[in-house]
């Protein structure tokens, strides 16, 4: 249980460890994009953690990073093909950021720091926790940006129609600003 919970708050991958920034900032223009990216990362994280944990004894330490990266790339290819086949719309919205999960430091970081030292089930729980933490982080960021940038969440209108959307929130600058304030807020709560 400990392994799952720590990823949700104490060692939150986005707000506390600042890992996986690229997808966090790039795809959170809307809540739905954020969640799809989060789910893709959960999938890749769980499976590559399992795989790394399984082969941890046979991989020579000098080439371990290269091996992990190739394992991750294989799972990302699976997710990419899956999204292209069943959710072409989302696949288009995520664009190159879906394949960029390969170099997402959350995944490599968890493989290196946790899965390569622990058993399969602990690694799966760790992957699940970190992935879930990443997911809610993206959901929150995506919702805030969509709310102020388009006046809606998940495409449902929340703010009144005469609300003037703040375009900057959907643009890159808004991503940085919202994330910066969220990190600061998290620091405030923790202290």
């Amino acid at each position, binding site marked *: 249980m400990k392994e799952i919970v720590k990823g949700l708050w104490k060692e939150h991958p986005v707000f506390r460890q*600042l890992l996986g920034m*690229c997808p966090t900032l790039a795809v959170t223009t809307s809540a739905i994009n954020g969640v799809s990216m989060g789910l893709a990362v959960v999938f890749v994280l769980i499976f590559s953690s399992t795989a790394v944990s399984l082969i941890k004894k046979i991989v020579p330490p000098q080439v371990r990073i290269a091996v992990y990266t*190739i394992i991750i790339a294989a799972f990302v*290819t699976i997710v990419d093909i899956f999204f292209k086949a069943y959710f072409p719309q989302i696949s288009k919205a995520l664009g190159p950021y879906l394949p*960029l999960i390969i170099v997402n430091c959350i995944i490599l970081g968890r493989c290196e720091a946790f899965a390569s030292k622990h058993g399969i089930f602990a690694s799966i729980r760790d992957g699940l926790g970190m992935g879930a933490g990443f997911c809610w982080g993206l959901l929150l960021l995506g919702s805030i940006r969509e709310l102020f940038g388009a006046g809606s969440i998940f495409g449902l209108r929340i703010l009144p129609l005469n609300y003037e959307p703040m375009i900057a929130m959907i643009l890159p600058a808004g991503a*940085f600003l919202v994330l910066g304030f969220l*990190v600061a807020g998290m*620091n405030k709560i923790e202290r």
Partner: protein
Amino acid sequence: MKELILIFISTFLINNFVLSYFLGICPFLGVSGKIESALGMGMAVTFVMTIASSLSWLIYHLILAKFNLLFLEYVVFILVIASLVQIVEMFMRKYSPALYQSLGIYLPLITTNCAILGAALFMVTRNYSFLETAMFGFSGGLGFLLVLMIMAGIREELNYADIPKPFQGAALTIITAGLLALTFMGFSGLISA
């Protein structure tokens, strides 16, 4: 020639890798503390990015596309980048110890720099020619260097500022990046898309 210049301006300033594609944020937050290390990291990235994207272009068009192996794209690209970084590191250590001294420690970090893989992926989706790809990689790297240097300059000054506790560290860096991104939006009028 005109296309190449357009690619340079648009990648260097308007669609900057860091500020508008969010690529290479991890090193951007990690190495932007000092101007010296920012310069080293930026130069290493420019160097690897130019070669990596050109090499990926060759492999993609001459091997993968020919033999119908496009599904291997990601695995191959990441292999190219990882092995290229290794080779560059060994080559540098042997032939240019001075350069290795200044760039060496940043090289291993580059493998997981998403800007490099991002450049290779963009080059495919945008159907660039070989020359355009090389230009794209080079100007993308230079843009990264530019923003990293600006950021390092700002952060060196911020060391003397009285910052509220929750904002200290990463939070303020990210907000500063946001303000930089706003500033860079001013360049978007340079080229009428």
